[in-house]
């Protein structure tokens, strides 16, 4: 009896050991961010197809919500239990590179592979001449406007400058009935970015040529005053500091807002949730000098230095970045194409919404590649919230924040 028990345990342990050793031979663990409900199924399908074509390789996908991705990576890396590949926000890449956890991919990248990408989107993942990540998702921002409200207010064309935007917002807000001209984001992630649209149009950059914060400059203050005036004249939704990007998008979907700036994925959401909404997409308004700027964002997929199966991991990356796989992902999630061949597909060429975004790409700014960027963004958002609430004057608040940011940058 006893020996039977022992035997069972022994065989169980042995077979378990055998199993794990087989699994280790070609296991590639991939941490992916959940962009939408379509992300998980997409990667599950990619895993299946890839494993069928590459016997012996076991792909393990971990889908993580965006909000906790950085936290998960931080703890995983700290404990040494990170995956082989992971999607990260490209703005975090500098930390990963500085701490020497990201593997440069140049050894794997062939000229043919490199040629698949639109250069604007690959370049943010290049640091010190080395490519550390591949752009898995790319996005930019443009201005959505509600055609029905425009018609009712007697506006024929989307505004081209901030002055025109103010005039249009006045007409739309005058319609009454809980309808507001300009949707202004004042809470949570990208509160600072929503302000940069106005700041870039004044010809001010986040960091000037000397690497100092641009927030204290006259243009930056003028931009804050544009927004403050919109708030004070009730041309935005009330209580802007309680509206995150999603909250403003919801108002837009409900037809309560005339204009807002956001990413291409809103088109997909409108298609599913508010198919009757008549809207258009236009360029972000320009400033007096004609300057304008949109926010370009890429997320990168990186390989970790401590990966045991780099060859297999690279093979999987190579597969993910084939034209068909890319097209399926990009169209499902509502991103911009990063792949040249993909961008030529009818889906993109004949899509007026997406064209507005791609037209803005030449004026796209990416988050500056500096350590401490998250802290800079946080400080900027804090200052903006105080300005929007009317607790402080734009002038003094932005100058003080610029000082603080310069202090952070010097470290």
């Amino acid at each position, binding site marked *: 009896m006893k020996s039977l028990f022992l035997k069972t345990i022994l065989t169980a342990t042995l077979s378990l050991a055998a199993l794990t050793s087989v699994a280790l031979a070609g296991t590639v663990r991939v941490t992916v961010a959940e962009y939408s409900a379509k992300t998980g199924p997409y990667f599950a399908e990619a895993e299946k197809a890839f494993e069928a074509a590459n016997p012996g390789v076991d792909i393990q996908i971990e889908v993580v919500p965006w909000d906790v991705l950085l936290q998960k990576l931080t703890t995983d890396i700290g404990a040494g239990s990170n995956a082989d590949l992971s999607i990260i926000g490209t703005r975090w890449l500098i930390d990963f590179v500085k701490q020497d956890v990201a593997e440069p991919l140049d050894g794997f990248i062939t000229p043919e592979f490199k040629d698949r990408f639109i250069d604007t989107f690959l370049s943010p993942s290049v640091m010190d001449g080395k490519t550390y990540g591949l752009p898995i998702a790319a996005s930019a921002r443009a201005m959505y406007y509600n055609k029905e409200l425009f018609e009712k207010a007697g506006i024929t064309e989307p505004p081209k400058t901030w002055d025109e935007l103010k005039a249009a917002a006045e007409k739309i807000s005058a319609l009454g009935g809980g309808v507001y001209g300009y949707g202004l984001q004042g*809470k949570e992630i990208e509160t600072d970015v929503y302000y940069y649209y106005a700041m870039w149009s004044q010809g001010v950059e986040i960091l000037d040529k000397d690497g100092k914060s641009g927030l204290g400059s006259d243009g930056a203050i003028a931009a804050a005053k544009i927004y403050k005036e919109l708030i004070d004249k009730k041309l935005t939704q009330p209580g802007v500091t309680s509206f995150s990007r999603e909250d403003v998008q919801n108002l837009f979907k409900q037809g309560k807002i005339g204009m807002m700036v956001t990413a291409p994925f809103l088109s997909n959401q409108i298609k599913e949730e508010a198919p009757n909404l008549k809207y258009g997409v236009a360029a972000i308004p320009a400033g007096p000098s004609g300057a304008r700027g949109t926010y370009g964002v890429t997320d990168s997929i990186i390989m970790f230095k401590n990966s045991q199966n780099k060859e297999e991991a690279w093979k999987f990356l190579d597969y993910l970045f084939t034209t068909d796989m890319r097209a399926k992902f990009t169209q499902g999630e509502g991103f911009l194409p990063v792949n040249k061949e993909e961008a030529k597909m009818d889906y993109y060429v004949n899509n007026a919404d997406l064209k507005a975004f791609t037209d803005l790409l030449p004026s796209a700014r990416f988050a500056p590649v500096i350590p401490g960027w998250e802290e800079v963004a946080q400080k900027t958002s804090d200052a903006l919230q105080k300005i929007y609430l009317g607790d402080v004057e734009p002038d003094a608040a932005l100058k003080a924040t610029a000082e603080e940011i310069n202090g952070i940058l010097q470290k």
Partner: protein
Amino acid sequence: MTSRQTAIPYLLILPSLVLAAAIIFWPVGSLIEIATNDVNRFGQLKGWNDFANFSALFANADFIQALWRTGLWTVLVVGGALLVSVPVALILNEDFYGRDIARVILMLPWAVSLTMTAVVWRWALNGESGMLNSALMGLGIISENVQWLASGDLAFAMQVLIGILVTVPFTTTIFLGGLSSIPQDLYEASALEGASRLQQFRHITLPLLKPFINIALVLNTIYVFNSFPIIWVTTQGGPANSTDILVTHLYKLGFRIGKLGEASAVSLIMLAILLIFTIIYVRLAMKEREA
């Protein structure tokens, strides 16, 4: 023989002591290590840094404000929950038609995850499409939408109310247990002597409920002091950090900005505050009982 006898109690508590050490002392030990070192954003230690993490914290106005606000938050939520729970428990202790249903309804918020409750409140408090505004509007109480979460003061007040709401079920449960342990003959005897309901409450119910109030106070203080979801989900400590308490401040420091050293220092300070509070309070409560 005697030496063996003295060893037995220690042997008996040894397993739980080992377990406690593994799950309490070890993490606290590594927290101390991280808090006193220069740490990169992935938690890798870069060497001792003369308590720079702590001095950075005390030089930070946001931290000091979060510290005070945590005190206010704890006092208001725990105090409010105790004040509401005593009458609720008294009512639920009476025998009335439908009492069981009333008890279940009261306990329900406890069964729902705190994060989900907070998410629902975030929707309800939305300024333009929130349920609370449309309900108040429908009742004719307000004529214009209130922006509940736009400014720090109002948002914090709402968070305290939500905090009280979710703390009441647990507190009431403790009090109900306490009330059922009070012998009924005390009330009968005092009624014969002509005591009014109020006198019964003051001289019988309240004194005998005291140990339970003490337990509720200590446990709730620990829970509420550390409570993250309500504030994080509704405002993320904003606008401009004006609703931050220590845990949300810690989270931002650690996982947004990547200052794990300072974040660990915050959690040590929180641990110290709770420890001191608990020791003082337990001492006071014990002394009272002896007297």
